[in-house]
Structures are given as structure tokens and as C-alpha cells.
């Protein structure tokens, strides 16, 4: 159902929802950006409409709601192992269409590749997704090429206009709360054209793996891993145990985000590492996003949000790399 309500009513609705839900949305952190006098837009808890940053793309994705940067799995006290408790409240997350498509990539790894991950599932089952529209494309976005510019599987769509709030609800809870509101036909804003487009080859021959194309990144990439941390579809983690400094008998096991670009990712006992060359790490990441994942799961992994290009301190462009691979494959097939 579609509704038109005023902002006061929307904020009252938020207040009611906060009893049982934590609401996460992109927020502006003034002065928190990478460069001097720039802001950072990332996810945080909100309680009013005004706190949500609708006008710009978030630097980081929504994924930290479902995959916390550091997540405690167990607490250890001597020989006793206790699983961590789930959060007390359910969650509501505001996100854009590309990110809602990314949710499907997270689900695939954590619910379908091998056994179900119980820590992911307990958050996933209690999270509701609210779509934010895109009136215009942002810098570096290529969602249209990736087919992620449109979404229908949201719990609600919310758009804030100068005077009102427009809502398209697929969620009974909201329909009940808005039962006496003005019905209105609401169609989510979406982009149909980006400034950047990519073309992904249907199949990538083995020769591309050995191409000198990857050498371009060997010295350019500084292996900081930011591209992985901002990516809404990167899911890797490392297990990490710690014990408390004032009580060595107690401690915990966590999983923390990991990056295939950062040193140590492939280290095996004894010191051997695979892909020590950063160009080869770039090849590994790019192939995963546009080829390996699709071979295994039948959909492209990359959802075209362009955050990796936004964040890279060396101005490495992932979309540009995809197009370089495509040109190389075309050349080979000629």
C-alpha cells in the first residue's frame, strides 16, 4: 500500500518502532571523512527522519548491521563455552537498491554455501529493509550495467519530499500503523542511466589470468583493503581469540572482517603465502566479483555501487578494470 504522511507523523512512527526495533540508516559524521574538512557518511542508529542522509551515497554499506566488523561468537570461562547473545531488538535498515541486491549475495554465502551460519541467520531473520530511492546517479555508480538499479523485495520504500513523506509498504506492521493515513500511489525513484557503464564478458578465458594487465596494479595498490571494507558484497572474516588482560582465564572468540588485498590473508602455518603480488590480489578480487561467484552461484557478485572506486586512495577504478578485462577478452576472441 502507498501512503502520504507528514514528517511529524513519520517521526512519531519512528518513536513507536524504536520500542521493538533498532533503526539503522546512513548518517553524516561531520569532519569524519578521509580528507581534511570532509564528512563521512556511514551507518549508525537513528531515531528521527532528519538524521538520515538521503542526498548522498554512503561511504560504507549496510552490511555491518548483519556482519558486524567484529562479532563475538563465544565467551570462554575456563572450560565453559557460552555463545554470545543476539541483540535484544529486531532491526530496520535503510538502504538503496544496489545494497538490497547485495543482501542476496550475503545470503548466498552465509545461508547456502555450506551449512547455515547461525550468527548471520539470527540477525537476518529479524531485520527489515527500507528502500531509499535514487533520483539521480551518484559518482562511480554502475548499477544499471549490473541490473541492480531496480528493487521490489523491500519491506517499505520511503521518500522524503519538501513537505511530506511518501511510503510504499509491503509490511503489515506499517500498513496497520498507517491505516488512517492518506492513500497515495508511490513508485520508488530509480536511475535508468549511470555516467559509468561496464560490460562483463560472458566467459573469461584462462589467458586473462596470466595477462600483464594485472601488473598495472602491482605497485599502484597499497594493499590497504578499503575496497573490501566498503564493498556490500565482500563477506570474508578471520577468527580471532582474545583473553582479558585482567583475567587470563576468561576470553572470547570473535570473527573480524578480513580483506583479500591485505597481507596475511592467505598465510598458512610455516609462513607460506599465496598471491604475494598485489596485482595478483587485484586479479583475484576482480575475478571473484565478475566471474568466479557467477560460476558457482549463477548471479554476478558485484552490484555496481562503486564504493570501491570512491574510497581507493590510489584512485584505482574497479569499473575501469572490468572494462579492461572485457577489451582483452574481445581482443582474444577476434
Amino acid at each position: 500500500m502507498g501512503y502520504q504522511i507528514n514528517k511529524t507523523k513519520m517521526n512519531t512512527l519512528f518513536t513507536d518502532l524504536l520500542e521493538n526495533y533498532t533503526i539503522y540508516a546512513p548518517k553524516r559524521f561531520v569532519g569524519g571523512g578521509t580528507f581534511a574538512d570532509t564528512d563521512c557518511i556511514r551507518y549508525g542508529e537513528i531515531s528521527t527522519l532528519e538524521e538520515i542522509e538521503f542526498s548522498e551515497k554512503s561511504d560504507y554499506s549496510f552490511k555491518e548491521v548483519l556482519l558486524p566488523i567484529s562479532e563475538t561468537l563465544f565467551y570462554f570461562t575456563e572450560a565453559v563455552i557460552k555463545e554470545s547473545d543476539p541483540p535484544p531488538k529486531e532491526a530496520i535498515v535503510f538502504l538503496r537498491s544496489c545494497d538490497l541486491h547485495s543482501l542476496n549475495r550475503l545470503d548466498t554465502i552465509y545461508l547456502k554455501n555450506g551449512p547455515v551460519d547461525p550468527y548471520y541467520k539470527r540477525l537476518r531473520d529479524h531485520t527489515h529493509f527500507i528502500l531509499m530511492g535514487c533520483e539521480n546517479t551518484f559518482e562511480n555508480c554502475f548499477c544499471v550495467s549490473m541490473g541492480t538499479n531496480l528493487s521490489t523485495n523491500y519491506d517499505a520504500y520511503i521518500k522524503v519530499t519538501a513537505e511530506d513523506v511518501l511510503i510504499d509498504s509491503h509490511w503489515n506492521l506499517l500498513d496497520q500503523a498507517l491505516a488512517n493515513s492518506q492513500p497515495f500511489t508511490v513508485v520508488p525513484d530509480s536511475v535508468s542511466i549511470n555516467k559509468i557503464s561496464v560490460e562483463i564478458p560472458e566467459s573469461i578465458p584462462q589467458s586473462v589470468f596470466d595477462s600483464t594487465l594485472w601488473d598495472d596494479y602491482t605497485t599502484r595498490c597499497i594493499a590497504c583493503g578499503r575496497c573490501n571494507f566498503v564493498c556490500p558484497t565482500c563477506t570474508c572474516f578471520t577468527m580471532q581469540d582474545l583473553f582479558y588482560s585482567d583475567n587470563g582465564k576468561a576470553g572470547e572468540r570473535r570473527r573480524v572482517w578480513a580483506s583479500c588485498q591485505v597481507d596475511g590473508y592467505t598465510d598458512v602455518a610455516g609462513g607460506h603465502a599465496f598471491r604475494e603480488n598485489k596485482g595478483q590480489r587485484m586479479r583475484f578480487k576482480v575475478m571473484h566479483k565478475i566471474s568466479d561467484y557467477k560460476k558457482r552461484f549463477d548471479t554476478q557478485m558485484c552490484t555496481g555501487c562503486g564504493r570501491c572506486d570512491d574510497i581507493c586512495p590510489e584512485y584505482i577504478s574497479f569499473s575501469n578494470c572490468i572494462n579492461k578485462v572485457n577489451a582483452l577478452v574481445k581482443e582474444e576472441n577476434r
Partner: protein
Amino acid sequence: MTTTNPYTPFLSEIKEVIKHTDIEYTFRMTFSGDAKPGQFFEVSLPKFGEAPISISGIAEDTVDLTIRRVGKVTDEIFENYVGDSLFLRGPYGNGFSIDNYIDKEIILIAGGTGLSPVKGIADYFSAHPKETKGFTLVAGFKSPNDVLFKADFEKWKKNLNVILTVDTPIDGYCGKSGMVTEYISSIPVKNIDDAIGIVVGPPMMMKCTIDELLKKGFKEANIWISQERKMCCGIGKCGHCKIDDTYICLDGPVFNYTKGKFLKD
């Protein structure tokens, strides 16, 4: 959540410790479930972390885990094992299927700790010599001081053709020396079309050994390998062991060479 949480380790008692070298011990652990050579456990001491360790021996109520003191977790295991227990979860991975090798000629080539995941295969055919048409074990170690499973070698020698070699001999050593690859061409094989090659070891050793087997006339489909990677979770989530579209922990670590040859790091 407890019953379905695949990350929850269980306590396993250390029944026996066999010291091979200063830094490599076998821990015989209580475990009564199904296990195959080539599978691995995530072994941990809570508060210090987990490490993937392959199964180096299987008995009714125990599994052997041969651990090398080379990482954070394994250092801690060496310091703290006495009369104690370790936490395990697993076994994970596909492992070697002995059925694929029965009634065939087999050359098993292992480098260093690469012998651990295939030791169960040598154990099996040593105990059932009639189920193979010829079994040669070629095992290479860096030096005589690095040789693992010395007692097992004595046992295997009775029923299997064993070639034990070291890269660098030291004074007083009177065994064979040189790389494992040097011995492959001279191993007699009656029916090369049906002969099985099993290769596990460091990446360069595996590559050179497979080249030798192929040169000798082995069919790619008759060569089996096991890949060592950093398996943090063992259940297809953490991503560290992924190569191309393959998750070593779920789809491997054992691969037929027809698939394994395409695995490009």
C-alpha cells in the same frame, strides 16, 4: 542455537603424544565419528585461536593430528597440552576415498608434513596389502632430523615399497638423498593407464612431482592432490581458502588433477 551451531567446538582428550622432531608432534585425540584421510579438524585452545590440522591417523576411538609448531595457535598447543584436552570441530573437507585406489598400482608421493593427510592411505594398504597391485611410498623431508612417523616407516617397509629421501643429508645418515622427483622415473609400473598417483606437499614440490608423473605416462584423471590453504572457518564462509570458484574447505582439499590443475591462486 547450540545444537545447530557449526562453530561450537567439542572437547577432545589427548590420549597420547608422539614426538617426531623438536617441532612436530602427533596428538592422538579421542574422536569416535567418521573420518577420512585428507579431512581436517579446526583445532583450538580457547583464547588462543583455531588452526586447520589434517588427520594423520584414524582408529576406532581416536584420530591423530600431527601438529607443527609454526604458528600462534600451535605454539600454544605445544606449551599447554600435558595431560589435557584440545577443542576440535570437524572433520571438514572431502578427504581421500580409499575406494578409488583399491586393486590398482599406487605411487604415493609426499613432501614434509604433506605426509600427514595421506598417511591414512599408507596405513590402509599396509594393513590390507592384497587390495593393491603395488604400492610405492615416496616421502621426502628436508633433513634426517625432519623425518616424521619413523616408527610407521618401519611398519610400512614390511608390506609396501618405501622410498624415504632427504634433501640435505647430514653426517652419519646412510639413507637415500635427493628430491622425491628423482625417484619417480625408476619406480616400476606394470599398467600405466590404470596406475594411481597421489601427491601432497609444498606447491613447488607438487608441481614438479606431477610433471614427473605425467612424463612417466600417468593419466591426469588418475592423479590426486590435496591443497593446503588457510581454512579459518572450514564451512565455506570466511573466504580465505577460495581459489577461483572453488572453496577448498567444501569442495576439497582433495582434488582429482583434472580439476586441480585449473586451481589458480
